[in-house]
């Protein structure tokens, strides 16, 4: 079982002119095994939602709640959230110079599982995950995200998704900057994750392209810090045809 429940979430960021509200009451529930897509224009607050769920210190939650299987996520530290089963594939993965991918993955896996993985199977698992994402095995000796191309960073995020195998994955524009082949490889990775029992996915994207490979159960249109509309996969087709204009105008009124 895994249910991520977001209720009336309000989030601010600190700016030069004081706190600015970015999320203005977001309510969304991802039930067992569901995939939800969030689509919205630039600056509408999609990444803010993702980071707030993960606990980035830049964002201040001023109201509402987030629970995972009933547990208060907002009361947890960043690493506790990950150990509770949340995973965020970042829009802009961070470079960590001098820390090898192998060391990073092993440390993360050990933290998540509470014990070190068995050496022999682990090396095989890592190589397998890298290979499935079309990353050659020399990757494990490179520093985390350092000098990776945009596409390699995204594929590396999905390799982590496979290896850490959380309950709920939040994918923030994992599709942006990918060519069509890489997009397929990444989508297959996400689908392998989804095929497992009870895994939730919150797929944040700007374009409908990825939804051809990862079919969502629900689509939410995100505008100006709120969900402006929701529906099934057909909503994505409508957005493809009409764009966000009518929602942006409505929000501006």
């Amino acid at each position: 079982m895994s249910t991520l429940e977001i209720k009336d979430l309000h989030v601010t960021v600190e700016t030069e002119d004081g706190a600015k509200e970015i999320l203005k009451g977001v309510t969304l529930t991802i039930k067992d095994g569901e995939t939800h897509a969030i689509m919205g224009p630039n600056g509408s607050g999609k990444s803010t939602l993702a980071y707030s769920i993960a606990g980035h210190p830049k964002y201040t939650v001023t109201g509402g709640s987030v629970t995972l299987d009933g547990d208060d996520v907002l009361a947890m530290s960043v690493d506790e959230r990950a150990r509770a089963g949340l995973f965020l594939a970042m829009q802009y993965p961070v470079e960590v110079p001098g820390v090898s991918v192998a060391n990073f993955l092993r440390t993360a896996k050990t933290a998540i599982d509470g014990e070190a993985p068995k050496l022999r199977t682990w090396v095989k698992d890592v190589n397998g995950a890298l290979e499935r994402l079309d990353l050659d095995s020399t990757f494990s000796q490179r520093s985390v995200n350092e000098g990776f191309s945009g596409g390699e960073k995204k594929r590396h995020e999905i390799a982590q998704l496979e290896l850490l195998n959380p309950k709920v994955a939040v994918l923030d524009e994992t599709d942006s900057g990918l060519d069509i082949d890489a997009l397929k490889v990444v989508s297959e990775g996400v689908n392998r994750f989804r095929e497992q029992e009870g895994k939730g996915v919150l797929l944040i994207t700007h374009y409908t392209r990825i939804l051809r490979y990862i079919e969502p159960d629900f689509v939410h249109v995100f505008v100006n810090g709120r969900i402006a509309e929701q529906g099934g996969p057909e909503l994505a087709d409508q957005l493809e045809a009409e764009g966000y204009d009518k929602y942006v105008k409505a929000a501006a009124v």
Partner: protein
Amino acid sequence: MTDAARASVESALELDKVDSHLHPEGSFDVADHPVPTGREEVWRFTPLRRLRDLHADADLSGTSVGAEADAPDGVRIESIDADSPLRGTSGFVPVDRVSARVWHEAARRYAVTVPRETELDAPVFIDVRGTGIEGASSTHVVITAEPHSKATVVFRFLGSATLADLTEIVVGDGAQLTVVSIDDWEDDAVHLGHRHAKVGRDATFKHVDVSFGGNVVRHDTTAEYSGPGGSVEMLGMYFADGDTDHGGQHIEHRLFVDHTAPNTRSNVVYKGALQGEGAHTVWIGNVLIRKVAEGIETYEENRNLVLTDGCQADSVPNLEIETGEIEGAGHASATGRFDDEQLFYLRSRGIEENEARRLVVHGFFNDLIRKIDVPAIEAKLTETVEAELAKNVLKALPGGDR
């Protein structure tokens, strides 16, 4: 070396006098070096009050520092007298009062000599151990790697001490010498060290300076070339902590590579981390490329990672170029705060904050550890780094909750 000999060497090298603050006039006469006041360019960063008068007129005859060597066959280690001809063979001329005094007054003098064409199969370890801070000690050592020899000499500084020392290093033609200095002092040690190397034709000299311990540690590390084709690599790693009982650690490295011969190379990389109120590091990287030094290549770099508020990292690279006929010359200096985004990224993968900090700092030093590449000490070095990180980084830090 006599003045006449020095004059002939200088004329052979066709060295022009360079009017440069990088290159103060040296003198063996203590009277030529007044007690520094702290206003001098070369002393302005150093906390003179905490030097226990080493910079002034402290009695240097203390005996609380002992040296113990563990050396493979083939190397000669012996005490030398004040009139030993080995002294001065590196071309060292004192540039300040403390080194002039050590020259004349050193309580202990010894030489480490690797004979011609000898390749040592293990490093020479010299443990310098202090038993107390009372009574300043002084040491003068001359390391000679004779032509075409190959050796590694590792100094480990341990315990409590007030020490002024001078290390002369002569790398003969075609020799390959690595000298490692690991400052693992107790929190109360004060150490002023001078190291000067003369690097022969086609010789390779690598100096590795690891400074973790001590209260005030200042190393002047300088190199010159006695023939073309020589190569100098200076690598340094330091960690200054603010929370000692004796005031924040002050770690100062003053480097000077004097390109006195054509087609020589130098590569200087120092990295440091600072943490805690009052931690202070200073890195001065001077490179002088003389007119004769055509076709040389030099690069120097200093990077500092500031882990908390209240620390100060001073970093000053200086490059003076007297000839345009060079292969390449560059420098870089950067001081950065601990990167919260890196920390967030690691923690978002379940890694606890302390472990994440440790990883980031370890990563910061990692490429340098790889460059040091002295297999015999690598494990020990990694262990020392880990211990230092455990001691400092894993300490509960403010704002460490989320």
